[in-house]
């Protein structure tokens, strides 16, 4: 029925347009360049635009355009040690590397994000970010999917947690089934194996999968998403020694564990850290006190080879190179890095070998960062629970609004506006 309505709409919209108006393909092109905020506002232009903007195919077009052109990108800052769960967003749409633009860049302030799921007495952290959705985990063992751009969220159903020593989560998208999945690994006490559960948004349910037969090397680091697979370091024995460490990849489509080879050169005195840069798996190799080499995994899943991209010399970056986190490319080939121990953001130009600190107004003293792309991707499980909740919330909002207006009229504050 909805389809029929849409067909009728198309005709009426085209008829109402004067001859010099644009064909629909160009309207869609223009809309796909807009930030989510504008699109949400433009849903109420007419029924046809509503249908266009909420069409799942358009949501995908808009997302892939943003990903390809590196637009609608934000950095989320969260203070990990404060119980005051504020998320702050920094958008850099028009960001350029040239110094004059950098000054403008720094003058933009971060904006407070209204996080819908406050739990004041529990710590929470960002598990991951994918296609505009953030996955948040708190110490009450609750997991939440949240789209900060559309401000929709979905709380995952509770699933029993095995008695274990460490819990690690990962979040990503399986493009073959268009499903968002969350993987939770519980490292068992005194055992090499870990119990693993996978949540699927399509079915809104958890299920247990084959145990992970390795030992987690870094039980506090979330798994990293690249090429529709999650990645982490593991050991073959119940010891976290660096020599037997390797990278495990978990494919979100087949739900299989695979060992990813390390670069050949790797020596014992090198400290390795995994990262993601421009959607690719990235390995940071720190030669303590000298420099950090940044390697990217090329031809993922086929030839799997590491290619050195650049190295960062110690003099240019103060503090400990050990704790570097790549955030994203800036336009013109720079790389934004986070120095984890000094809580600073740095823009590094690999060609010049020069770094510059980025001082963004309003960034908390301590922060966890995550990049995310503004998207219309819905967080509802396909069973329609979100729709029902929205309707309810909407009615409550309407009631509140009416009450507020009445109160305003009574107190005379409306006259002041």
């Amino acid at each position: 029925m909805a389809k029929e309505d849409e067909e009728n709409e198309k005709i009426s919209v085209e008829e109402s347009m004067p001859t010099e108006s644009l064909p629909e393909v160009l309207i869609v092109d223009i809309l796909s360049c807009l930030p989510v905020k504008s699109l949400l506002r433009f849903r109420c232009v007419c029924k046809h635009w509503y249908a266009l903007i909420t069409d799942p195919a358009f949501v995908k077009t808009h997302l892939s355009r943003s990903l390809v052109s590196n637009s609608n990108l934000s950095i989320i800052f969260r203070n990990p040690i404060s119980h005051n769960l504020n998320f702050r967003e920094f958008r850099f749409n028009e960001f350029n590397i040239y110094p004059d633009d950098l000054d403008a860049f720094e003058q933009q302030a971060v904006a407070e994000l209204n996080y819908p799921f406050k739990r004041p007495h529990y710590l929470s952290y960002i598990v991951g970010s994918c296609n505009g959705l953030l996955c948040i985990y708190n110490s009450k063992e609750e997991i939440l999917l949240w789209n900060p751009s559309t401000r929709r969220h979905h709380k995952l159903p509770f699933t029993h947690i095995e008695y274990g020593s460490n819990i690690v989560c990962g979040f990503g998208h399986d493009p073959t089934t268009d499903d968002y999945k969350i993987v939770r690994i519980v490292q068992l006490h005194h055992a090499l194996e870990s119990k693993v559960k996978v949540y699927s948004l399509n079915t809104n349910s958890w299920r247990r999968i084959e145990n992970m037969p390795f030992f987690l090397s870094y039980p506090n680091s979330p798994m990293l998403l690249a090429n529709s697979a999650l990645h982490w370091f593991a050991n073959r024995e119940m010891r976290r020694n660096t020599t037997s460490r390797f990278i495990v990849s978990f494919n979100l489509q087949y739900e299989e564990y695979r060992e990813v080879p390390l670069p050949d050169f790797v020596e014992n005195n090198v400290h390795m850290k995994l990262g993601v840069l421009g959607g690719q798996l990235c390995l940071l190799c720190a030669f303590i006190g000298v420099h950090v080499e940044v390697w990217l995994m090329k031809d993922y899943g086929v030839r799997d080879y590491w290619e050195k991209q650049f190295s960062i010399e110690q003099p240019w970056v103060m503090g400990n190179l050990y704790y570097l986190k790549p955030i994203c490319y800036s336009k013109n080939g720079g790389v934004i890095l986070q120095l984890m121990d000094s809580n600073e953001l740095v823009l590094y130009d690999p060609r010049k070998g020069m770094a510059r600190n980025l001082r963004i107004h309003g960034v908390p003293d301590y922060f966890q960062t995550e990049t995310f792309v503004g998207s219309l991707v819905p967080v509802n499980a396909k069973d329609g629970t979100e729709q029902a909740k929205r309707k309810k919330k909407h009615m409550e909002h309407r009631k509140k609004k009416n009450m507020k207006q009445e109160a305003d009229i009574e107190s005379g504050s409306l006259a002041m506006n």
Partner: protein
Amino acid sequence: MSSTKIFLKSSDDKTFEIDETAARASETLKNIIDGGCLDGVIPLPNVSSNILPKVIEYCKKHGGDNGSSKKIANGGVDKDKEILPDYDEEEDKREKVRVDELKKWEEEYMDFDQQVLYDLMLAANYLHIKGLLDLTVEKAASMIRGRTPDQIRENFNINSDFTPEEEEEMILIEDEWDDEWAFD
């Protein structure tokens, strides 16, 4: 080869001249040229004489190089692009000058009213000039991004077809949005 001239005829029967290399910026023209139909004039019934010179100006600037400005603007985003290990300061300066110059040119080139913008977008779409299409589409997007639904309706000549109840609901959803985040 660069001296070969091609003649284009606008919808209102005016003829314009363009170098073959410049004309190759358009996929449509490129196919006509490669198809060997170069006898006489290529008629363009969808492009008028006030838009065609604009199109030619763009093609001249970009030659056969489709969407080159796009590549420069998004440098470093290209995932397979290798970052140069050797930094050449002179080359970097030249590149910066080139990018700045192109940006300035684009700014001046794109300085026209909305109707011309839409006509140029239609022409770019018809002639398959990807760089020009991206440029005009992005410009149109940046022009409308801060507008209200009413302004959009006026702009695109659309009548709202929501029933009063639906409209009220839509406005409430909009309000819900405004309450928490201010407009741009």
